[in-house]
């Protein structure tokens, strides 16, 4: 019996300025394979399907259990995490490309630093007085915890930004992930001290008004975060804030 194989087509680019080329790989199938284990296999035997020696593929990865947010890429056209992309569930040849909306570093590795900058711009933190012992935190009822916990599950993978038609250089849109974090911190009993600052940060160009309600973000989110709900809630708060600021002159 011929061994079952897995075929992949991977978009390679040696550097940001180098031309992109597609390379094909044919690997022996093993039960439970995912896209990451396929790429590990290529690293251990870097030869294309045509028998041409090549280099191991450069890609970001770390936890391999869909919690660190590293290994986002486009797999068969869909922005998703490579670790949870099981080979048996994918149509072959499996086409793998880097995310398209972020500066390319090499092969499947892109620079998603913009998200961390956005989180800084909206002060996505709770301003505690200090780390010394100040006793217990504010009471939070289970219902509140259950509302906030999903928002706090954002792994910063940037899939929501990749699939958003408005996330591009023309609009400079911050994207859904940052908006959801604004909702999270504005909900927090202490975090809400910066509520107005956060809403103002989302009020101008590139802010929440850029959202075109395509709703791709909520579909693409690997953690099932209620992103569109967050956008409507924060959008309303931004509008109210704008009105207040206008009346205050």
């Amino acid at each position, binding site marked *: 019996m011929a061994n079952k194989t897995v075929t992949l087509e991977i978009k390679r680019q*040696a*550097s940001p300025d180098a031309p992109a080329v597609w390379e094909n790989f044919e690997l022996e199938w*093993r039960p*439970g*394979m*995912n896209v*990451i*284990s396929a790429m*590990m296999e290529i*690293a*251990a035997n*870097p030869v294309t399907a045509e028998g041409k020696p*090549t*280099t*191991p593929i*450069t890609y*970001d*990865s*770390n*936890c*391999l*259990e*869909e*919690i*660190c*947010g*590293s290994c986002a890429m486009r797999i068969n056209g869909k922005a998703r995490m490579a*670790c*949870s992309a*099981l080979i048996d569930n994918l149509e072959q040849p499996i086409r793998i490309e880097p995310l398209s909306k972020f500066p390319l570093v*090499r*092969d499947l*590795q892109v620079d998603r*630093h913009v998200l*961390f900058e956005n*989180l*800084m711009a909206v*002060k996505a*933190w*709770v*301003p*505690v007085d200090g*780390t010394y012992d*100040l*006793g*217990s*935190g504010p*009471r*939070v*009822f*289970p219902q509140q*915890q*259950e509302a906030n*916990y999903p928002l*706090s*599950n954002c*792994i*910063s993978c940037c899939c929501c930004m990749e699939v958003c038609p408005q996330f591009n250089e023309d609009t400079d849109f911050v994207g859904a992930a940052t908006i959801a974090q604004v909702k999270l911190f504005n909900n927090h009993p*202490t*975090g809400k001290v910066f509520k107005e600052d956060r809403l103002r940060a989302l009020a101008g160009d590139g802010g929440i008004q850029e959202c075109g309600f395509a709703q791709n973000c909520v579909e693409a989110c690997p953690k099932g975060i209620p992103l569109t709900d967050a956008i409507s809630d924060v959008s309303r708060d931004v509008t109210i804030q704008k009105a207040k600021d206008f009346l205050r002159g």
Partner: protein
Amino acid sequence: MASPRIIVVGGGLAGLAAVIKIAEAGGIVDLFSIVPVKRSHSVCAQGGINAAKNLKGEGDTTDKHFDDTIYGGDFLANQTPVKAMCEAAPAIIDLLDRMGVPFNRTPEGLLDFRRFGGTLYNRTAFAGATTGQQLLYALDEQVRRYESAGLVKKYEGWEFLSAVLDSRGAARGITALDLRTMELRSFPAEAIILATGGNGALFGKSTNSVVCTGSAQSAIFQQGAYYANGEFIQVHPTCIPGEDKLRLMSESARGEGGRVWVPRTAGDKRPIKQIPDSDRFYFLEEWYPKYGNLVPRDVATRAIHKVVYELGLGLDGQPMVYLDLTHIDRATLNRKLEGILEIYEKFVGDDPRDVPMKIFPGMHYTMGGLWVDFNQMTNIPGIFAAGECEYQYHGANRLGANSLVSCIFGGFRAGPNALHYSHGLECPDGNCGDASELARQAEINGKLLKNEGTENPFRLWRELGQTMTEHATVIRYNKGLKQADEKVVELLERFKNVNLSDRSQWANTSFAFARQLKNMLELSRTITLGALLRDESRGAHYKPDFPDRNDEKFLKTTKASFTGLPEGPKFEYEEVDTQYIKPRPRRYDATK
């Protein structure tokens, strides 16, 4: 006088905790991390964080937490730092709560706690089953706050290569590699803190993340730091075997009532639900009636091994047993364990709310690590260590949910101690040693890139993982440990013949990996030889030929130092601080 400059290497819980303390005291920090710090391995911690807050009316105390930790670690941990950690834990939970960690709550709005292994108390605070992720994010947010205030500069995507030492042998900075541009640089500092996690990669597949290679610890070890208790490796009883890694299935599954079992008859063909309770072998509950499914990890792991390999009762003849949650209602499962249930669903394809999970033990945690004093400083002046990369809080076996607290506590100590150490230090004769260290690293890099060999580093790594997993995990025999060490020596020799299929100078992952691999190989010998020399059984270190603990000979910390000689590291032993709790036999089949 200008503020001292401290370098922190590693952006997991321990590293970020150190950064926060330093920045809060007005110090300036350069924070180095291979990955963006928010993607550090701490995100993988699932079940919770221990602190004896006694919010369940059980009479829990920090003393009991201390005793459980020491007893769980089979008396190998120095007691003074462990006692301090357990006493600090309740305030750490409060702080995390104030930082906004979405801990699960009681109806009254207070913190909820659950039970974990090796204790009889509900002592574990939790945020669903993604507690590590939530804690890391809280600290990441605080660090971002200091970053925006200009007190912290992040070097994400840089890999630590070595410490810069001055002529007195004190740390004056580091050398690091930009993983994108491949630029090699030195960075000055008055003190450095390593918070670089565990070394799961030595075992090939483990529950650890890709970056957990132990490479940084090994580099420092090769520069003269002691590596302590390397032979103590925790194998977690419940993991999902995978092609690329072993995925953790949190102890909290058992904390919430999950039961481990196999059919009493090998090859029982009945559908799972038709196997009545009387035909199910709940072996942990039978063998350990007091602790049941919540015995410590080393005990549960050996029990599973026994069931599979001695009794031949693995599921369908495979090395797997059931971890069963199906008797618990879905709403409770979703509220308390959703994160891990999703992992199982996504990676295996079955819903563990309906079907018992199939699990098997896997390498999980590095109890040993860089030797540090009670101030978290290694024997190299100015190099501190905190978190999983150092050895001091878990003895011979770590209790579940103690890792997160030890990381934060260790970071909280290392930060201020490094700051205190660093005030007003001058380099001898104005020479900090950076030029010579840079030259040494440049030479290593140049050689590696030009090497015309035939060995693929990723394949060498697989061989290392196979031999370490076979001989240096759950059950250890001296013959096997010797074989494993010989294999490591062979791999070190073959490494000289390594060939990078990629010689480019841009985001070259093969190059970075090959450098890590060399360090992994050197560090592996602290495990193989440390285990070989320890002829007893203690905590996670189990030798059937020496089944008992031998306090007279081995109630001692193993300290390995690098020699560069073919025979491997030099080993010496240090007395353990047992001033508070007198060592007693560790038995989980009876009340302690």
